[in-house]
C-alpha cells in the first residue's frame, strides 16, 4: 500500500477508480466484439455454406449469403454482426451445425457453478488464514501461512487436479472425477463438483490470505483500532470487530482483481475434470478449428469478466458508506 495520502483520499480515489472502470468498459466491450468479428473473417470456410447445410442448392446458399449480408462491405457486415449478436445469434458450429448460443447456454451454468463452489470455501478460508497470519505476525503460523500462499500462486492448477484425481478419485475411489454429476441439489451432483471445486479453490486461498494479511496489518495500526484497544477491549474483539471489518473492504477489490486468475484456473480445471463449462468449450473449439464456437465462448468469457469487474467496483462502493454518500 502506498504510504502517502489519508484514508479519505483513498476513498475518493477508489470512487474515481470505479467510475474510470465503468467508462473504460465501453471501449473494451467494443474491442471484444471487434476481435470476435475479425476472428470470423479469418475463417477459411464460407459461413453461408456452413449455415445452409450439406444438401443446400447454390440458390439457397446465395439467398443465405444475402440474408447474412456477406456480400456487403466489411463495416456494414460489422454492423450486421452486432445486430445479430444483440439478438442472440452467434452463428452455428462448423463441426456439428448446432447454434453457438445453444451450446453456450448449456455451458454457462456449469462454469458459474464451479466458480461459486470454489469461492464459497476458498475466500472464507483465505480471509481466516490471512487474519491469523496478521494477528500472529512474525510467528511460525504466519510464516507457514505465507509459505503456503506463495506455493499457492506457484503451483500449476492442473498439477493439483491431477494429484486429486490420482489419489482421491482413482486410488481411494472416494469421489468421481469426470464430468458433472447432475444438479447440485442431488447427491451425485454434489459429489462430482467436490474435486473440481477443491482444485480451483485451492489455488485461490493463497492470494486471498496474502491480501487479507496486508490489509489487516494496515488497519491494525489505524487510529480507531488504537482507540478500541485503549478502551480495554479484548484483543480478539478488536481484531474481529474493528480491524477485520474494515480490512475486508480492500480485500473485496483485490479479490476482484484476481478474477482473471480465477478464470484461467477455471479453464484448466474444466479441461482436467471434463467439466462441461465455457472454458472447456472454448479450448475444444479452438483445437478443432471451430471458430464460430470459439468466438462465442471467448466473447462470453470476456463479457463475464467485464461484468464481474464492474460488479466488484459497485460492491466496493456498497460496502463503504462513505463512498456511497459521495
Amino acid at each position, binding site marked *: 500500500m502506498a504510504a502517502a495520502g489519508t484514508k479519505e483520499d483513498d476513498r475518493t480515489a477508489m470512487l474515481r477508480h470505479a467510475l474510470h472502470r465503468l467508462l473504460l468498459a465501453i471501449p473494451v466491450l467494443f474491442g471484444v466484439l471487434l476481435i470476435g468479428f475479425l476472428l470470423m473473417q479469418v475463417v477459411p470456410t464460407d459461413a453461408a455454406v456452413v449455415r445452409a447445410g450439406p444438401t443446400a442448392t447454390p440458390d439457397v446458399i446465395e439467398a443465405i449469403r444475402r440474408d447474412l449480408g456477406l456480400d456487403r462491405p466489411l463495416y456494414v457486415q460489422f454492423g450486421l454482426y452486432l445486430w445479430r449478436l444483440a439478438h442472440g445469434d452467434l452463428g452455428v458450429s462448423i463441426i456439428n451445425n448446432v447454434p453457438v448460443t445453444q451450446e453456450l447456454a448449456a455451458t454457462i451454468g456449469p462454469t458459474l457453478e464451479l466458480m461459486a463452489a470454489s469461492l464459497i470455501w476458498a475466500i472464507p478460508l483465505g480471509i481466516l488464514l490471512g487474519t491469523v497470519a496478521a494477528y500472529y505476525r512474525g510467528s511460525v503460523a504466519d510464516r507457514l501461512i505465507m509459505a503456503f500462499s506463495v506455493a499457492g500462486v506457484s*503451483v*500449476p492448477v492442473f498439477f493439483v487436479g491431477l494429484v486429486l484425481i490420482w489419489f482421491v478419485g482413482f486410488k481411494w475411489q472416494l469421489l468421481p472425477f469426470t464430468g458433472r454429476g447432475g444438479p447440485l441439489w442431488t447427491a451425485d451432483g454434489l459429489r462430482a463438483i467436490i474435486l473440481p471445486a477443491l482444485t480451483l479453490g485451492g489455488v485461490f486461498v493463497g492470494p486471498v490470505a496474502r491480501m487479507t494479511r496486508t490489509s489487516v496489518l494496515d488497519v491494525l495500526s489505524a487510529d480507531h483500532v488504537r482507540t478500541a484497544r485503549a478502551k480495554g477491549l479484548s484483543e480478539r474483539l478488536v481484531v474481529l470487530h474493528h480491524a477485520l471489518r474494515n480490512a475486508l473492504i480492500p480485500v473485496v477489490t483485490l479479490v476482484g482483481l484476481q478474477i482473471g486468475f480465477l478464470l484461467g484456473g477455471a479453464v484448466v480445471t474444466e479441461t482436467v475434470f471434463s467439466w462441461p463449462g465455457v472454458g472447456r468449450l472454448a479450448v475444444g473449439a479452438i483445437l478443432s478449428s471451430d471458430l464460430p464456437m470459439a468466438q462465442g465462448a471467448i466473447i462470453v468469457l470476456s463479457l463475464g*469478466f467485464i461484468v464481474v469487474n464492474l460488479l466488484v467496483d459497485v460492491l466496493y462502493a456498497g460496502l463503504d458508506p462513505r463512498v456511497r454518500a459521495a
Partner: protein
Amino acid sequence: MSATTAQPAAEVRPPRRAGLLRRLLRDPGAAVALVFAVLIVLAAVFAPLLAPTDPYDNDLSLAMQPPGSPGLPLGADSQGRDMITRLLYGLRVSLLMGVAAVAFGGSIGALLGFLAAFYQRWLDGPIMRLMDMMLSFPAILVGLAIAAIFGPGIFSVVLALSIATVPLMARIARSSALVVMRLDYIEAARATGMTDFRLIWRHLAPNCLSAIFVFGTLRFGQVILLGSALSFLGLGAQPPTPELGAMASEGRNFLFFAPHIAVIPCVVIFAIVLAFNVLGDALRDALDPRLRV
C-alpha cells in the same frame, strides 16, 4: 555493515551489486531459490551435453518404465523416451518461451512506460488508458483469442504472454520513471542540451532498472506458469516437442498406469515458478522496498 566505527565516505553510498547478493543470500529461502534458479538455467543451456539420449529417440519396449528402472533414473514416457532427456529439453523450450515473452513484452511495456512518464503532458493519458484496456483482458483470454486466430503453437503462446506482459511492465516502468523524473539531475542533464532520446536512454532508463528487473523476475515465474497451462490445454507446444506443460498433458492419459510421466514435469514447473516467485519477492525487498504491495 556495523555502525560501531565511522565509515569512510565511500561506504556511505547505497550498497550495489555485491551487497545485493549478500543481502539476498542472508534469507535462506531466497538463497535456495537463487541456487535452484541458476542450476535450472544451466541445465537448460547445457541440455544437449547433459542429456543421455536424443529427446526424440523412442524405444517402445521401454514405454512407461517407472523411475529407477535400469538406465532410466526417472523412467520413460509413453513412447519409451528417457524422461531425463525430455525434461532437460523441455526446460529449454519452457524457459525460452518465458524469456522471449518477458523480454519482448517487457521491452515494449517499459518503453511505453518511459514515454508516458517523460512526455507526461500529452502521452501519459493516452498510453495509460490503452494499458488499462489491455489489463481488462486476463492473460488466459488473450491466450485463447491468439490461439484461435493464429492456431495453437509456441508462437501463439509467446505472443499472448508478451501482450499480457506489456501493460503490467508499462505501469511499473512509468511509476518508477515518474520518481526519477522529479530528481534534479534529469533537469541538469536537460540543461546541458541533451536530446530527449539520450535523456531517456542514458539517465532515465538506467535508474529504473532495479524496478524493471524485480518485476521481470516475478513476471518470469507467472509467465512460465501461464505458458505451461496453455501448453497443457493443447494450445502451445505441440507433441512431440518436449515442453513441460505439453509433457504433463501427454502424461495425463497414462495417469493411472504411469503417474510419473505427468507428475515429474508438474513438479519441475512448480519448483521453477516457486523459485522465481521467492526470488522476485526477495529481490524486491532487497532492492526496492517501495515496490512492496
